[in-house]
Every structure is written in C-alpha cells, then in structure tokens.
C-alpha cells in the first residue's frame, strides 16, 4: 500500500517523532498532576493552608497566565497528537472485508478477536481513559475554577477553597465522578509512565527494573493521593 494523505501524522512528523512529543507532553502532565495533588493534599492540614496556597497562586498575576497557557498548550498537543495517532492506527489495522461476519468487539479485526498474551488492559484502553480524563478536566474547571460558587470569606478577598472542596465532595455523585476520573487517570499513568520512558529510549538494560516499577508506583501515588480527598470528605474525616 502506498502513502495516503489522510493517513499522515500532523505537521509532517513521523509516527516515531509524534510519539516522542506525546511522551514528553505526557511526562509534563504527570509532573503537573503530582504538583497539583501535593497542593491539594493541604486540605488535610488543620488551618487554612489550602486557602493561603490558592490565594498565592491566584495572586501570581501574569505569571499565572503564562503557566495556564503553557499547560493548555501541552494538554492540547498531547490530546491532538494522540487522537491523530489513534485514528491513524485504526486505519492501519483496517476493517474486515466481509459482509457476513460481525466483528465481536469494536476495534478488533479478527473474527473472534485476538487473544492478548502480554498487553495490559491499561495499555489497550489509553484513548478511552484519555477521553474520560478530558471530559473530567472540562467538568473540573467548570466546577472549581471558572464558577466557584462559594462566596469569598467575609472581610478579605481570600476565597474559602477548603469549604468549597468539602461542600463539593459532600455530594456523593460529585465525589463519585471525581473518584472514577482519578481511577481512569491512574490507569492512564500506569501504562503511560513506563511507556513514555520506552518511547524516549530511556529503557535500557540497567534502567529496566525501575521503568517497569515507575508506572505502578506513580499510578498508585497519584491515584491514592487524589482519591483520598473525596473519600475523606464523604466519610467525614475532613469536615
């Protein structure tokens, strides 16, 4: 089969180059997610540390916008390239040329499916966990950043973020949405972290044991760290 323009990678990149950008942006997103989590875990501190922290971020002025635009570009680059690659891969896989047989599962090209021996479930559903994360990010921004419906603390301009978080997560549906999204994120990172190291050629004989642990370790830390907040609000450990 020769080249076909609808099957190319954006900006004339090779699939290998594009995948390296996915890995770099993915790693940047992991770093952001860790920083974000550490900030949020201040909700467990007794005083209003979380509110002070939020206030500090908000008063960064233009710097805040630089960070926001930087993060947005990284996110858009990651999502854009992964969608392009995933679509290209579906074309490369092809469809079954038959009018009699119904493929058992979408995304399969063998009549009875392929019996995977080593591919992890997390690795096979990256686009799905990715889309869950994408939808969640929109919801999350609407929920906490764009329309924080909690009024500022009387007297000064400090927003009571802590109260807002506790109020939000006391609705079990809201907490449930957050927990599901964090499970998707953990699954994404479980495959993503190790995969990104492989994509960047950093998996060698000497780093191999560490690389395979990186995924599970980061997924566990980020998953448990983030999920602990809605769980502790629901169980009245933070109130």
């Amino acid at each position, binding site marked *: 089969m020769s080249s076909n323009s609808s099957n190319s990678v954006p900006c004339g990149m090779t699939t290998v180059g594009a*995948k390296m950008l996915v890995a770099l942006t993915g790693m940047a997103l992991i770093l952001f997610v860790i920083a974000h989590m550490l900030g949020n875990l201040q909700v467990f501190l007794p005083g209003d540390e979380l509110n002070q922290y939020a206030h500090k971020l908000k008063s960064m002025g233009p710097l805040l916008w630089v960070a926001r635009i930087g993060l947005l570009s990284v996110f858009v680059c990651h999502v854009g390239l992964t969608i392009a690659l995933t679509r290209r891969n579906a074309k*490369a*896989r092809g469809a079954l040329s038959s009018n009699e047989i119904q493929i058992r599962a979408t995304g399969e090209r063998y009549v009875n499916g392929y019996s995977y021996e080593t591919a992890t479930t997390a690795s096979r559903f990256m686009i799905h966990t990715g889309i869950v994360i994408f939808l969640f990010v929109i919801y999350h921004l609407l929920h906490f950043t764009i329309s924080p419906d909690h009024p500022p603390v009387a007297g000064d301009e400090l927003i009571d973020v802590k109260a807002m978080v506790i109020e939000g997560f006391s609705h079990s549906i809201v907490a449930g949405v957050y927990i599901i999204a964090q499970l998707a994120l953990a699954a994404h990172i479980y495959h993503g972290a190790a995969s990104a190291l492989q994509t960047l050629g950093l998996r060698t004989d000497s780093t191999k044991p560490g690389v395979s642990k990186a995924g599970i370790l980061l997924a566990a830390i980020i998953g448990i760290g983030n999920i602990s907040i809605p769980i502790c609000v629901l169980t009245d450990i933070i109130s």
Partner: protein
Amino acid sequence: MATYKVKIWRQSGPNANGHMERHIVKGIDGDMSFLEMLDHLNEDLEEQGKEPVAFDHDCREGICGACSLVINGQAHGPETTTTCQLHMRSFEEHNVSEIDIEPFRATAFPIIKDCVVDRSGFDRVIQSGGFVSVNTGNAPDANANAIPKPEADTAFDAAACIGCGACVAACKNASAMLFVSAKVSHLAHLPQGDAERRERVHSMVNTMDKEGFGSCTNYGECEAACPKSISTDNIATLNREFIRSKVGPTT
C-alpha cells in the same frame, strides 16, 4: 489420530468479500505440523473437486518467514514458533479440537487470496535502509573488525528476525515497529552499519509510515507473538537511534 473442526478464512481475491469456511479434518497425527494438517485438508478438497485453501509457506523449517497464520486468535498459534514449526500435538495435548485460522491482517498487508497476504511492504522497508556500504575488491576477512562479544550478541539476537510479520498481525495498531527496530538495532550494534547509521533510521521509519503501518503504543504484544523472541528492547534502541540522528554528533 485426531479429528479437528477447522474454520478457515476464504476470500477469492483482493477485493472480494471473505468468510470463515467450516471443515472437518480427520486422521491428524500429533507429530504432523500445522501446515501438514492444512495439506491434508487441501487434499480432501481437491478430491472433492473443490478449490484448495491458499496459504503461504516455503522452507517449513522456521527460517524463511513465509508462513503466516493467525491460529485461534494468536499469530503463529499457541507456541513461540513459526506456523510451520507448530505441531498438532500442541492442540492434542490441550484437548483443543476447534481451530480458527485467519490471515495476518493489516491494511499494509492486503489479502491476495484466502490466507495469503502481501507483505512486500517489509521488503520496501528493508530496501530503504537495510544495507551497508562495503569496499569492493576481495572479500574482507570475517574477523577484520573487532566487535565486543555483548555487542555481537545483541546484534545477532536482532538479526534473528525472519520478517514474518507476526508482530504486525498481533499489534492492535498494526505497527511494524518490532520488525523495523530489529533491523535498525542489528546494524546499529555493528561497526559495518556505521556509514549509514543516521540515514538508516530515518529512511526505514519514513518507509514504515508510508506503507501504512501503525504507530507503536508499547503494548508489547508483538514480542509475545514473535517466533524468534525479538525483544522490545530493540524498539528502545530504535527510539535512541532516532533521537541520536536528530541531535547527536554527526559521526
């Protein structure tokens, strides 16, 4: 002697619609190879005046890479070997009596007929970078270049790839990265490969993309399907070669 219920992909030509055809194959000994079982089926079909099933094969000793079937949902079947080196005892021992047979499927491997696919895309990848420059004249001594043993071993392991395409068949993305990386890694570990080192990785990756193979998402299913146990370590090597060719020293 065992009897198998076989379902096999039939497709009369590249653009025809295909279907799974059912057959009963009797009198199969555990020591017969998988392809001998299919020969048996084809003899039956010919006796009945029917068209035999087309499938690829050549050496039948696991070295040429011609045989290519997805057997019960696995490229080259349940063992780590080629289809021609798979024996019917593998099914007998596990009491498996139903066998589904399909071609290696990928857009870049169009079906020619039944279970025969066109894998010439691999040849074009090789043509684009799987060569080295040598001085003409007398053949150099085989031991003229000193190569450390670990390097030689790594190169040799990568060179074991027979270009069968099972990695593509097993990959959800129909990616050819295991194959291409075996070729790149083989020559990257040898001094003979140095002259074209920078160009090679680019040409081969570009050809791979142009042929319509998918991209690698590090599922690792290719390694499990590979009859020669080519390791995904080679994919890390290809990625390093790719970065090196962009930002590394020119020589």
